[in-house]
């Protein structure tokens, strides 16, 4: 199957600041990909490039098109939710439905109505009268009613309370996602989405520093908890990161040869958030496979 997104040498500068620096990655149809990085790492720029919202250099193909050309045709196959509150404030809920119905050929009005019926949102309300959580519910209902191949979410739950955040991802997975669809989520709150992802892209200083399928993670990354007398022994195996846990240390290794580590003790697969912290602190010092 050919990739739904493929980027080669993707670069973008704002003045002297390199928002994206020769980023390479590809995303297969059906993937749920997390684009994860600290604030200012280039996540939003990368997503804007995917959507044809900014100029860039390099090769980029999204759903078989160059986003720089015919952006409006690309948008028939791609949906987009940026951080909350991008719906126009003066718009009424009923008008929002009418509008998307009127301009999007793949919008299913009944589905949107059905999704909205489960919320407290009134049709006559203006967007500015809704809470942040409700605006996101509305936007999600509109987007989930559109049958597209690729859904791009940029920090979709930023500023929402925990109830709405959970509901957001539950709905997304329960009612939207299927094997035909691809989802790209950018966030810096890794723990929130790590259980849904099938692919990880870590981004730092505009570079992709890790591109890995979730099911390859256990083969490549391992961590071991050791007490003080064995620290030096562990360091012999070049951990990429160590952190303190109640007087002991957790050592994190990037190696395909887990057998070597057996002498240290029981290994386990690190969580995505631990791996994230490790990679972000480590990547500055060593070259990373991409």
């Amino acid at each position, binding site marked *: 199957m050919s990739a739904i997104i493929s980027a080669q040498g993707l670069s973008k500068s704002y003045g002297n600041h390199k928002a994206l620096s020769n980023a390479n990655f590809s995303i297969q149809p059906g993937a749920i990909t997390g684009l994860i990085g600290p604030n200012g790492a280039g996540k939003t720029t990368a997503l804007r490039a995917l959507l044809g*919202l900014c*100029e860039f250099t390099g090769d980029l193909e999204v759903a078989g098109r160059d986003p720089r050309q015919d952006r409006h045709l690309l*948008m028939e196959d791609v949906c*987009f939710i940026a951080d909350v509150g991008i719906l126009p404030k*003066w718009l009424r809920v009923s008008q929002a439905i009418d*509008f998307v119905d009127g301009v999007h050929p793949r919008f299913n009005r009944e589905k949107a109505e059905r999704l909205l019926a489960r919320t407290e949102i009134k049709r006559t309300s203006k967007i500015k009268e809704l809470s942040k959580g409700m605006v996101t519910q509305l936007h999600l209902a509109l987007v989930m009613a559109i049958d597209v191949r690729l859904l791009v979410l940029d920090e979709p739950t930023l500023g929402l309370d925990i109830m709405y955040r959970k509901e957001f991802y539950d709905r997304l997975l329960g009612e939207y996602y299927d094997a035909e669809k691809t989802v790209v989520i950018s966030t810096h709150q890794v723990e929130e989405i790590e259980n849904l992802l099938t692919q990880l892209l870590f981004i730092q200083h505009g570079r992709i520093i890790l591109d890995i399928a979730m099911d390859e993670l256990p083969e490549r990354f391992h961590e071991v908890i050791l007490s003080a007398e064995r620290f030096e022994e562990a360091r012999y195996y070049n951990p990429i990161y160590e952190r303190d846990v109640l007087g002991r240390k957790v050592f994190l290794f990037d190696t395909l040869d887990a057998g070597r580590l057996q002498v240290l003790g029981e290994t386990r697969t690190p969580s995505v958030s631990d791996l994230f912290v490790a990679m972000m602190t480590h990547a500055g010092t060593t070259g990373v496979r991409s």
Partner: protein
Amino acid sequence: MNMEFHIKQLRTLIFREFWEHKIAIFWVPVSIGILCTLALLWGITREPVYDAAINQLNIMSSIAQPEARVQLLGIFGMVSMLFLAPLYLTIPIYLLVCLYDDRKTGASLFWYSLPVSNAKTVASKLLTALVLMPLSAIAILLLFFMLLLLISTVLILSSGLGAGLLWLLIQSFFNAVLLIVSVAILTGLWLLPFYGWLLLVSAFARAVPFFWAVGVVIALAIAERVVFSSSYFSTWLDSRGIPYQNLSVSWTELVGAFLNYDMLYGLVLGSVLIVGAIYMRRYTD
């Protein structure tokens, strides 16, 4: 994609303009209509105004028909100015902010995330300025004309002036409405270079579009004077103002004022600027 879908998209986009700019498109003419209605009802119940109206009707029924028709058209024309003149304030403001707001308010990513081409978006804004805004003002004007006709009919019949004047009044009314609609549409086309320029500024200005719109024009005029010691540009600007001050025009005047090479050049220049606006809208950075 088929024609039907394109039309549906464009119609939806124009609806969107109506929702967003309801005050300029709808409430401004409605307010004028309400004010005019109140003024008319207040006036006609006052003796001096009533007497003056009867007097005017008497004069018109005594003079020759063509002259009376010119007078009646003049009255309709004057009243229509009250409704149409504000358009040439609201339309430029609308054009200047429409694309700018799409980019600069928090909603830009919403508008840009839908499968609508830049050309169609700009077309919807242009059609709003050229058609929707004038038609909305004219629709409210027509309601006011109805009231005016009703009151005139009552006055004519009650003062025994005869059916001849009434017939003339109704003829003039239809004539005036056709003229007003034509003038409104032709004026929009005549002003197309300005409309195109405002759309272009709206599409590219990163801040304060008003200063861009006015500043560049003034700078060009000054630059021409300084560099070439000539003033073709400002003379040309003057010549492109609203081409008549009085709506009591006849069809021959109308053709003379609008259907000429100046109109054609303006349409070409306007179209170039509009294409520029479509191209500039690509960039949201």
